[in-house]
């Protein structure tokens, strides 16, 4: 463009058009149009400067320029004649026709090389399917709790405290009863809702003859509004009446079928009477309250549990949940800062003193963090599932990358075959950009085909994936964003997979290619080699990861549990009618001949519900304060679960005073500090006969036995110090533990056991659980990771091998002549195989060198989460390295042996 000269200076020398806009225009608009278009734009601009001022005129100018970015103004889409005059009809933009031609050629190419197309499409399809599955999974995780409209402003109240004795900071979500009222009194203007709640638990709902276990939540009435539930019947006020229950739609249908449930009567655990006042649309699974099938008022829970009522003004018992919703104009940070003085402001004096001593601090834990940041360190949220979300995201990207690498490698490897085509195209006038377009449209075609295949793959595997990942994912085929994202995904993948070949192939020099001697330099294959190494690094890391995760699960599963889970079932004792019938129940059960014993305990075998602190004992360091897991058990409990006595004796009816005795576990025995008291040495002196005094300073119990630790919490953590108290009259019992005789199968025994329950306590629900199944659930998280990891590892290996297979075949083909000559000169098949395999083995060895430290680094970090953990032994690396080598050799050998067996006459004849 002609630059303007001084006499033509615009009237306002300071009023310039935006520089970026001009540059953009000059770059984009066809030269023969530029002068007039830009002239007009400038003219309008100067007029507008006078009318609306410089700034706005500049903005408008920018907009106007952006409006010019249409194909019409672009030079490449309009053939330019020397005169700069626009054009006659028959030389219309060539794009659509050429594109059609490209696609046709691409399609013919695919059809011609079926094996190659298969490798490319299946590899890419698998990669895309995995990436999309992971994408769905990540979306599901990241959108957790977003069903609730106010999820940004909902939070749970947590408390942080530092134990001055052991200098340990911890946190809890269990708060004191009076805290709710105090929060409401002093801080109500920051919150829309402050709701006391009991924990989500399983209850038995019964209506007339129907009994069903359902999960429910006792919470104050604002919950329905806070969680923005979609009410099918009733409204947000439905929870205000004391004896009310609001059911989920599915629970309502399960209880009452199609009948209108409103005003129907129900009993919770056969003791709390309620009337259905509302029904809400089921909350989707990926929500904290997704499993909750009914809501009932908190006040009702208080009214029906005496011990809670007594806690109304007690700051000493922390057992309750408090949920809040912030006012719209209050941020979480503000609220956190304001409620920081909570204990100084609102509690009785002695509580304030305690609060000061333990450095109590109240803070809000926002709902958006509940799921992904659910791990705590020193009482503060510190990551959690979010690590997995990103880790899987990275893995997904890598698997896709592997598939793209295959595509790139195969295309460039095949370049020699296509070199002639490219040479001719160039010789007859193809532009480089046109060739790039051609190759990109080829890869676009392949990616679209792969996408279709991957959709099929996903629909085939989704139910399996859901099962493994414990999700309810589905392909959102009806949502427009999904298709838009897919389109973008296709475009990105097509570009990723096609860019390198496109630019590589289009750079060939026609003269050299057509002369028939395209010898790429020594380093031409280097990028390809690097890509293969990358593939193998990813694959090997995944293999090692899978082995370590699997080993860790095995390690924990093989941990001695300290009792015998076999044939053990538990049933919650949650019906008031069990009352005095427990001994009758036991006798009836024993009479069936199916049952070896029935006993009772205050917690299930696979959990600890009760923790207590404040004990003291002889020789106790007065500064130490820690709590113990407490379980109240009936006489024969030990025999039924098969705990292992290390010292002392079990509870027995032949000693009248056993109600003042206790049995402790090994960890507790060690902790009590009685271990080596009698004069050093390693000998374990069991603290039999010692007295443990309770926090009130009066009550005390004597230790009569020590048992081996029973694994009840996490199988990856050291077991908690535990006390077992005798509960002779079943006062604290909450679980019925039944041991089926080892000689009888569960299938046979269960109906008979159920019949006894129906007879003795007809109102109770027979809701049994197998202890070994409950125990196995403790591994579900790790097992899920293990299954997914092995799935990804298999796929990664498979995709990498597909690529290797293709690559090997091309390299063998490329070296056919060389092989022929070598054969003629006397090389054996073994020699030739070694020659061809050597390169790949070398690459795998390099990959191993990178992969092993990487895997070691990440896995050490992962294992660090567990106290009870396996080690990463050297054989894991050896096995995965040998495995990777073996797979590589197998893959490559097929092609290289095939090449080595070819009769040299055939391969050499052509020249």
């Amino acid at each position, binding site marked *: 463009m002609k630059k*303007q*000269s001084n006499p033509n*200076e*615009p009237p306002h020398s300071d009023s310039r058009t935006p520089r970026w806009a001009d540059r953009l225009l000059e770059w984009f608009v066809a030269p023969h149009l530029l002068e007039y*278009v830009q002239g*007009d734009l400038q*003219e309008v601009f*100067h007029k507008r400067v006078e009318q609306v001022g410089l700034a706005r005129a500049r903005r408008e100018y920018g907009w106007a320029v952006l*409006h*010019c970015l249409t194909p019409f103004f672009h030079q490449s889409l309009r053939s330019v004649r020397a005169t700069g005059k626009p054009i006659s009809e028959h030389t219309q933009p060539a794009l659509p026709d050429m594109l059609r031609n490209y696609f046709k050629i691409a399609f013919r190419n695919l059809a011609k090389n079926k094996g190659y197309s298969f490798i490319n499409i299946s590899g890419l399809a698998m990669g895309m399917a995995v990436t999309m599955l992971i994408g769905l999974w990540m979306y599901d995780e990241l959108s957790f709790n977003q069903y609730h409209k106010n999820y940004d402003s909902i939070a749970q109240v947590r408390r942080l405290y530092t134990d001055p004795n052991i200098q340990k900071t911890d946190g809890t979500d269990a708060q004191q009863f009076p805290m709710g009222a105090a929060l409401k009194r002093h801080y109500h203007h920051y919150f829309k809702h402050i709701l006391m709640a009991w924990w989500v638990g399983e209850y038995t709902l019964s209506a007339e003859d129907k009994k069903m276990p359902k999960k429910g939540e006792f919470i104050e009435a604002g919950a329905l509004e806070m969680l923005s539930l979609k009410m099918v019947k009733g409204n947000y006020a439905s929870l205000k009446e004391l004896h009310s229950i609001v059911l989920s739609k599915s629970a309502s249908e399960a209880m009452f079928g199609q009948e209108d449930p409103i005003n129907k009567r129900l009993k919770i655990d056969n003791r709390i009477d309620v009337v259905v006042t509302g029904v809400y649309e089921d909350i989707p699974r990926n929500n904290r309250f997704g499993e909750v099938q009914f809501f009932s008022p908190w006040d009702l829970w208080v009214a029906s549990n005496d011990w809670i009522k007594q806690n109304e003004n007690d700051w000493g018992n922390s057992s309750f949940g408090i949920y809040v919703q912030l006012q719209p104009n209050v941020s979480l940070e503000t609220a956190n800062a304001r409620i920081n003085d909570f204990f100084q402001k609102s509690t009785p004096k002695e509580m304030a003193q305690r609060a000061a001593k333990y450095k109590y601090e109240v803070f809000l834990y926002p709902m958006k963090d509940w799921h992904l940041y659910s791990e705590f360190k020193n009482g503060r949220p510190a990551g959690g599932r979010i690590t997995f979300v990103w880790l899987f995201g990275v893995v997904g990207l890598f698997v896709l990358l592997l598939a793209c690498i295959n595509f790139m490698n195969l295309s460039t490897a095949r370049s020699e075959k296509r070199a002639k085509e490219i040479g001719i195209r160039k010789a007859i006038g193809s532009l480089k950009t046109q060739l790039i377009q051609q190759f990109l449209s080829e890869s676009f075609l392949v990616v679209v085909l792969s996408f279709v295949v991957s959709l099929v793959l996903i629909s085939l595997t989704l139910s399996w994936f859901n099962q493994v990942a414990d999700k309810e994912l589905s392909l959102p085929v009806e949502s427009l964003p999904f298709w838009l994202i897919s389109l973008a995904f296709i475009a990105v993948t097509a570009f990723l997979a096609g860019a390198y070949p496109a630019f590589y192939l289009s750079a060939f020099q026609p003269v050299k290619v057509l002369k028939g001697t395209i010898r790429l330099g020594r380093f031409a294959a280097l990028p390809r080699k690097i890509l293969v190494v990358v593939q193998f690094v990813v694959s090997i890391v995944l293999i090692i990861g899978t082995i370590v995760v699997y080993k860790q699960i095995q390690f924990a599963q093989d941990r001695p549990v300290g009792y015998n889970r076999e044939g053990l079932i538990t049933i919650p004792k949650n019906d008031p009618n069990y009352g005095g019938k427990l001994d009758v129940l036991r006798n009836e059960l024993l009479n069936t001949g199916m049952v070896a014993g029935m006993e009772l305990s205050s917690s299930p075998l696979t959990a600890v519900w009760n923790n207590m602190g404040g004990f003291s004992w002889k020789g106790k360091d007065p500064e130490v304060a820690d709590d113990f897991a407490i379980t109240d058990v009936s006489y024969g409990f030990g025999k039924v679960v098969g705990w292992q006595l290390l010292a002392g004796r079990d509870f027995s009816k032949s000693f009248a005073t056993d109600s003042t005795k206790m049995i402790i576990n090994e960890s507790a025995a060690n902790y009590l500090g009685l271990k080596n008291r009698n004069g050093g040495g390693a000998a374990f002196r069991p603290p039999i006969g010692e007295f443990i005094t309770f926090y009130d300073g009066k009550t005390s119990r004597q230790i009569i036995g020590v048992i081996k630790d029973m694994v009840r919490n996490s199988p990856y953590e050291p077991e908690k110090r535990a006390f077992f108290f005798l509960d002779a009259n079943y006062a604290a019992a909450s679980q019925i533990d039944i041991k089926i005789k080892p000689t009888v199968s569960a299938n046979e025994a269960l109906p008979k056991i159920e019949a006894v329950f129906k007879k003795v306590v007809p109102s109770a629900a027979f809701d049994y659980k197998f202890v070994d199944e409950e125990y196995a659930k403790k591994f579900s998280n790790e097992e899920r990771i293990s299954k997914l990891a092995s799935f990804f590892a298999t796929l990664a290996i498979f995709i990498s091998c597909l690529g290797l297979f293709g690559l090997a075949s091309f390299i063998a083909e490329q070296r056919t002549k060389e092989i022929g000559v070598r054969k003629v000169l006397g090389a054996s098949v073994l020699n030739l195989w070694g020659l061809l395999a050597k390169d790949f083995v070398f690459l795998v060895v390099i990959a191993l060198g990178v992969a092993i430290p990487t895997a070691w680094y990440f896995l050490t970090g992962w294992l660090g989460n567990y106290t009870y953990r396996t080690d990463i032994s050297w054989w894991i690396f050896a096995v995965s390295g040998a495995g990777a080598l073996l797979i590589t050799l197998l893959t490559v050998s097929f092609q290289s042996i095939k090449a080595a067996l070819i009769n040299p006459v055939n391969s050499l004849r052509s020249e």
Partner: protein
Amino acid sequence: MKKTILGELEELVLLVVAASTEEVYGVPVMEQLQLQTGRSFTVSAVHTTLYRLEEKGFLSSSVGGATTERGGRRKRLFALTAAGGRVLLEIQQMRNQLWQSIPEGKFDLLGL
């Protein structure tokens, strides 16, 4: 040649050029369009249409002079060709026919 159909904008632009007493270029066309229709048009839309009309042979163009307010850039001046005039007349005729075929009193019934 197949009979060319004009789009609405094309027709408007053609009319604006026809209505001007001398040759015009992008900016005046745009201003006239805005004035007559009360709608706003972008420079790019006006140019696209002008060039398209020229390709169709309804307008002819020549290079005009430069002025300072255009940053020294020249104008491309457009004038109506005979073909352009013909196509406008055809459109008008066709419209007139349609108008005449509207039954009498129809608009009265609609209260217009």
